[in-house]
């Protein structure tokens, strides 16, 4: 229920159904050996193995529903794959010498101590007897054994390499610092997030309030040490919807909401200069959906799509989208910027489109800071003007006073 009907929960990318790619990414060859292990388990059934089989089946179901629940599947996959591998190795690595003395089966310490002493006695004599009995083997030639063992070992080694790579790239890199690699292999570090957060920390008033999307709430609270409106602890759905509404309305309506919430700075993430795909314009539709959930009369998701039903940021985009606050904040002054000579100015690298609204002017916001690669943009919310501007022209009359009034005193 929650996944479908509550947009905040639906918008989290880890709550989407699992794809085969992510199954393979996390489990590699264990995806194939896991059913084999399950079968071995069921073949020699006892009480504990019933539990393992049930756990395995229900974990497979849950992992297929949500990516995040892959966590519940991994322990049982490892266990059952290990059972499968050990069965294979046991069969194919079986040692001939082990079949020598049937009595020597219990593995007590006394046994170990005694055997060397006895073998001395039997030295010249026993082996002759046993070697005559060895002709009745199980028919496993050494070639097949070697091939199968080598194959299994290679699979396991590739699995180890894959796991190391996955852990280092996907699960260990801090997403606050982005690293990219040039064509000659040198590493280029993009520290924009920390740059902007540190600027906020040092150069804004201590009690300033920052409005941003809830993804960055904890980061702002931790690194920039400023009050935020919404953060990753997303329990107040209507408050988040209010922020979403402010981001999706035009500037005047958004300014009213920001004044009512007493916001000093607005922070957004914009990936158009470097091609960063996790920026706020890509998350924008979720903001609209969440806002629509609470304010269906003011925000309609269909307004932000073209009549053909596409989400476009170029000239063909819907006018509501091209005038909303998030669009204006992301692309302010971007229309003049030409990234390289082949593309026109204002070419958004993430959406691969030239933006539609290039001449953006703000009435109530002012650009306070933009980080080096334009990744983080911070705007200051201006105070109300001292005087309201007249919304009509001053009155002009054609009446000329007949004579100047002179005092008779």
């Amino acid at each position, binding site marked *: 229920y929650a996944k479908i009907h509550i947009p905040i929960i639906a918008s989290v990318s880890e709550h989407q159904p699992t794809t085969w790619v992510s199954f393979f990414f996390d489990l590699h060859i264990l995806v194939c050996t896991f059913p084999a292990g399950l079968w071995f388990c069921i073949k020699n059934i006892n009480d504990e193995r019933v539990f393992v089989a049930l756990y395995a089946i229900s974990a497979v179901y849950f992992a297929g529903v949500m990516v995040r629940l892959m966590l519940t599947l991994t322990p049982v996959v490892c266990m059952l794959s290990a059972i499968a591998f050990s069965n294979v190795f046991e069969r194919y690595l079986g040692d001939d010498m082990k079949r020598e003395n049937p009595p020597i089966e219990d593995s007590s310490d006394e*046994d170990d101590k005694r055997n060397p002493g006895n073998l*001395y006695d039997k030295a010249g004599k026993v082996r002759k007897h046993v070697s005559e009995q060895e002709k009745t083997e199980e028919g496993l030639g050494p070639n097949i054994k070697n091939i199968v063992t080598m194959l299994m070992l290679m699979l396991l080694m590739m699995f180890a390499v894959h796991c190391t790579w996955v852990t280092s790239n996907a699960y260990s890199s801090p997403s606050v610092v982005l690293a990219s690699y040039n064509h000659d292999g040198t590493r280029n570090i993009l520290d924009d997030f920390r740059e*902007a957060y540190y600027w906020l920390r040092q*150069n804004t008033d201590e009690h300033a309030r920052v409005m941003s999307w809830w993804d960055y709430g904890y980061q702002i609270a931790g690194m920039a040490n400023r009050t935020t409106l919404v953060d990753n602890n997303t329990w107040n759905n209507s408050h988040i919807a209010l922020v979403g509404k402010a981001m999706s309305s035009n500037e005047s309506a958004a300014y009213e909401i920001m004044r009512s919430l007493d916001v000093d700075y607005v922070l957004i993430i914009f990936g158009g200069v470097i091609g960063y795909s996790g920026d706020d314009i890509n998350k924008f539709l979720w903001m609209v959906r969440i806002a629509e959930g609470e304010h269906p009369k003011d925000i309609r998701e269909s307004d932000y799509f073209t009549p053909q039903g596409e989400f476009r940021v170029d000239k063909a985009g819907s006018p509501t989208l091209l005038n909303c606050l998030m669009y204006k904040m992301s692309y302010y002054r971007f229309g003049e910027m030409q990234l390289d000579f082949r593309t026109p100015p204002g070419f958004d690298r993430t959406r691969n489109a030239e933006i539609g609204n290039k001449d953006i002017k703000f009435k109530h916001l002012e650009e306070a800071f933009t980080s080096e690669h*334009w990744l983080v943009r911070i705007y200051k919310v201006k105070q109300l003007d001292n005087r309201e501007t007249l919304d009509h022209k001053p009155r002009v009359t054609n009446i000329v006073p007949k004579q100047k009034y002179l005092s008779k005193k």
Partner: protein
Amino acid sequence: SGKFFSVKLPSPLAPGAKVRVSVEMVFTHVLQPYPTHITQSEKQFVVFEGNHYFYSPYVTKTQTTRVKLASRNVESYTKLGNPSRTEDMIEYGPFKDIPPYSQDTLKVHYENNSPFLTITSMTRVIEVSHWGNIAVEETVDLKHTGAVLKGPFSRYDYQRQPDSGISSVKSFKTILPAAAQDVYYRDEIGNISTSHLLVLDDSVEMEIRPRFPLFGGWKTHYIIGYNLPSYEYLYSLGDQYALKMRFVDHVFDEQVTDSLTVKIVLPEGAKNIHVDSPYEINRALDELHYTYLDTFGRPVIVAHKSNLVEQHIQDIVVHYTFNKILMLQEPLLVVGAFYILFFTVIVYVRLDFSITKDPAAEARMKVACITEQVLTLVNKRLGLYRHFDEAVNKYKQSRDISTLNSGKKSLEMEHKALTNEIASLQSKLKTEGSDLCDKVSEIQKLDGQVKELVLKSSVEAERLVAGKLKKDTYIENEKMHSNKRQDLVSKIDNILDAL
């Protein structure tokens, strides 16, 4: 009014003689930005207020004042005595016969885009360790004290227009001592990745870029630290040590520091601390600093000073005495800690904290112990037979009956001893009420039979050697005997397995 300094000439000046004296004075915060707030695209103008004349308690016969400016764009300047102006220099004078203590305000309003960085506060911590390392850490608060930025900061203009934000600070160079190693540059939220280190022969240059460019009124904060080898800065003579280090180090060229705190942490047990400073410093009370493996704390010398410039980079010397034996204190502490830990574990493992004694478990443990002993003895005995076999073979080869006899004797002796021991253990088992003693008695019986066979084989060997027995029959008999022995030994094995 004012501050008076007295200068001592190298040799007395005879009447009518001349001497050249050159005085260098550095003033901080005298350039005021005017206008105080500028936008990003404007240039920065500052006002300098000074004195046209040379302020001195003596009469000045002739005097020229030259003002060298940072740029050629001068907005206005006071015109006393028809000054001449070249590109970036204004020359006043020459003025004649100026009375002492004469002042006349000199005001120049000109463009100055050089970086107006001020270190508002700096803390320098020097930690001395006699194991060969001096760790230096500087915590710096930087502020741009030029004209304050008003209005928006446009990154587009900053990146694309060449003259946008010319008075802002993008980066600066810090020069560290030549032997500096393990340099780190971080702040409260982590490591700052925008820096470059260049190691040269006589210094280490670090090009530091703050996380964001500093515009007027913007400030930042960072921490720089490095390690130095102590043999370059710590001098010793017996128990006397002297640490000679710079009081304040280079942060950027022509730096201005508003307030500086220096803390020097000396090793534990340093006494008779005495500080020689090149200029006046305010010493606060000595503190104690507790860190790794410290028992009574390390003495810390704390000193403050305000309003420092680049010319204050001079050495300060700290003298102290330190007993060399105290250096052993640290490794001994570690050794002692481990010793106590292991000792406690050893004692604890041997203590028995069970509340009730479990007689069955105890009896089982005793029986197991005795069984082990029985096993070792039986194995030894079986080994004996092998030895005897070897002796018999040797006899067959060498026909030396004395060796055979000696071997037989030793076999008999040891066999007897072992059998007695096994018998005693067997009786012990009986007292414990275990049924294993029956098995042990069976072993004894079988062993007796084995011994008989062994002796028989030796007799046969003797007879063969003596020629009383034919070789074929001997071989047959041997085979029979060995088979029988095999059976008996395997039976013993089985019983031992069951134990």
